[in-house]
């Protein structure tokens, strides 16, 4: 048993770290650190640098442009990106639609879409949720009716991150309303520049604009944009969920947030000393730091089990729940630390807090994640 990272792992980490140091534009790093909104150009700028190094899609098979890294290397890569203040990976293309195209798409789809993801020529977004279907995704209502060589799509998708940047959207649509709930759903790729597609911004309570509603009004989509077989869309979406690697970026980002909190607390004064030297506040920070340490170790254990060939199971639910609880705890403390400064949007402390309330809601609410663990792990 050798419990430390290998020398090769350390060398790899150094390589990634120096790459980031060399390639990441300072202004992008600053925006990431301060929580400023990144522009589409910022993301594309960074993605093209990754692509030039061959690191755009570590999760893909080597044949399609993947890196061939093992799980430990992927973990190190994620961690270094987060600590280096690189922009977060926008998952919709690389992590979400690509694996489905690779697994279920035809050769033409692979040949066309995959290179364009690597090159950042396309920006994808995800059209799953609808106003009436949140946790109960399978109740979706967006219709795609076959009309010659096209599907005609009508409906509304919502909570779509960065739809304003995207030129393509992958959607779950209902192609057979007569079929049983999950069976009538298909997986369709839609060009957002098609007539009848409109995007309505949704501003969140922190004042930010990341999410949108997308309306389809008789949008004509070529049948070749169907992935796999009609009626199998639900299966494909589920395949992705079950094989989704438990990203380690969240934990690293929390360590980063924690650093932010400490800086803030070091600037505030209470009773004639800095807030970080106030025993009470320091212990609150310590409590969350200890939880985060535990989570980071839990994640390494999960990594180890994946390394040993086990399919990741409910670990991702576990990490989702604890990870978001910790993120929320940190941002609560950021707001608290800031005192009267929190009133002022310029300090952002309250805005971090408001924004992070979403984390226990999105990507399967924490309640849904509890249901998943109860069912899949505990058999309840």
């Amino acid at each position: 048993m050798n419990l430390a990272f290998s020398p090769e792992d350390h060398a790899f980490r150094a390589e990634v770290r120096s790459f980031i140091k060399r390639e990441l534009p300072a202004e992008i790093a600053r925006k990431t650190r301060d929580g400023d909104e990144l522009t589409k150009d910022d993301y594309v700028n960074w993605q093209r640098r990754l692509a030039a190094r061959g690191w755009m899609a570590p999760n893909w098979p080597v044949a399609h442009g993947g890196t061939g890294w093992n799980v430990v290397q992927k973990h190190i890569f994620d961690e270094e990106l987060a600590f280096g203040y690189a922009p977060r990976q926008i998952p919709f293309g690389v992590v979400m639609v690509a694996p489905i195209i690779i697994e279920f798409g035809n050769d033409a789809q692979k040949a066309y879409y995959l290179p364009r993801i690597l090159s950042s020529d396309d920006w994808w977004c995800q059209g799953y949720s609808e106003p009436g279907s949140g946790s109960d995704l399978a109740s979706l209502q967006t219709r795609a009716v076959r009309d010659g060589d096209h599907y005609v799509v009508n409906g509304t998708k919502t909570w779509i991150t960065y739809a304003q940047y995207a030129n393509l959207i992958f959607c779950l649509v209902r192609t057979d309303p007569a079929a049983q709930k999950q069976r009538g759903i298909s997986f369709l790729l839609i060009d957002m520049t098609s007539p009848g597609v409109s995007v309505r911004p949704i501003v969140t309570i922190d004042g930010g604009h990341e999410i949108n509603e997308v309306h389809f009004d008789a949008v004509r989509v070529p049948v070749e944009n169907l992935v796999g077989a009609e009626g199998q869309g639900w299966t494909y979406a589920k395949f992705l969920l079950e094989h989704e690697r438990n990203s380690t970026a969240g934990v690293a980002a929390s360590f980063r947030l924690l650093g932010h909190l400490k800086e803030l607390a070091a600037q505030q004064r209470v009773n004639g000393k800095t807030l970080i030297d106030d025993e009470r506040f320091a212990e609150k920070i310590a409590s969350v730091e200890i939880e985060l340490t535990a989570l980071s170790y839990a994640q390494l254990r999960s990594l180890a089990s994946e390394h040993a060939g086990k399919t990741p199971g409910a670990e991702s639910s576990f990490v989702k729940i604890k990870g978001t609880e910790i993120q929320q705890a940190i941002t609560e403390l950021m707001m608290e630390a800031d005192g009267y400064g929190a009133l002022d949007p310029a300090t952002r402390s309250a805005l971090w807090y408001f924004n992070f309330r979403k984390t226990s809601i999105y990507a399967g609410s924490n309640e849904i994640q509890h249901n998943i663990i109860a069912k899949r792990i505990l058999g309840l």
Partner: protein
Amino acid sequence: MDFSLSSDQLLIKESVDRFVGDAYGAERRRAIVAGNEGFSRDHWRTFASLGWLGIALPESQGGFGGSPVESMILMEAFGRGLVVEPYLPTVVLGGNALAFGGAHGDLLEQMIEGELLLSLAYAEDGSRYDEGLVETRARRDGDDLVIDGKKRGVLFGAVADKLVVSVRTRGLSQDRHGITLVLVDGDAPGVRRRDYRTVDGGRASDVVFSGVRVGPQAIVGELDGGLAILERTLDYGIAALAAEAVGIMSVMHATTVDYLKARTQFGVPIGSFQVLQHRAVDMLMSLEMARSMCYYGTMALSSSESDPQRRRALSATKVQIARSGRYVGQQAIQLHGAIGMTEEYHVGHYFKRMSMIELALGDVDHHLRRYVALGRIEDRAERPPDVAPPVAAESFA
């Protein structure tokens, strides 16, 4: 023992409920918040005409002789309506400071008539929530005081005609004696403001005082004797915030329960899921604990108890309000799901205001510390409070 609201109090409650029901609402509020001053002068005139601006002030000072209960009734309704008008800074903080100071009857009259807006400038960069830690200095120059320093988080500082400012006239920054309250015109020479929209839909300013000169008539209360007035004023502020918070929580709770009944997923209302039911129950309990403490704190203001006991009761109140408010607010967002995170839906605005109330006039840590410090002077064998509460029209649970 008589638990009911008086007929006068019932009238006030009806009128403010009507105002909040008729004149307020998400759309109108949005327009007010987006406007230039961040509040409606029309509404302010209504407040004046309904007698709300002097409702709790003694008749001897031109007020209508009400008690803190009247203020509680108004603030709770303002919370329900998410009313942004500067009632807290002008009437509760500014007005009470002047009233406790015992002079400036002319200004109080103007305020009661709606012609004078006030604010309180007490917090500083280095003070956090401790009103006794004052580094803004005022040096004597003949009969005048000349003020230099900086205050933060001055609510609606941009529209305040006069600011009540805590300044140090003697001693070092942490001395509890030597603090004086002075009235400064909002546009006095040497006053510089940075105004901003607050994250909860209000307005505030950071205010710099550079050689601002005021005459002896500007002193509120006694020279060097401002701290007791300031403390009492802030305690009244806490009680008002508590009532506002109760109004806010009650809306968040009711909205959430309605949503649980209306929203269906998996073919059933989500309110049929036991986990969400229990969460809604815990929200209700948090709300009722907060409401109880709101009454308790309000009673402590008018009781004849000594200052440390009053301050301790208000610290306890603030702790409970903040804890309840955080739970109710966070769960309101969580149980609504994504819709709760959007600016267009109303629950997020209540959540944001509640979050700022959590911090305003001292957060949980500050008040727990104060509660403990004040407790050392008391007997350690505790009994529950020996007064009974009022029953407002909101009945229990």
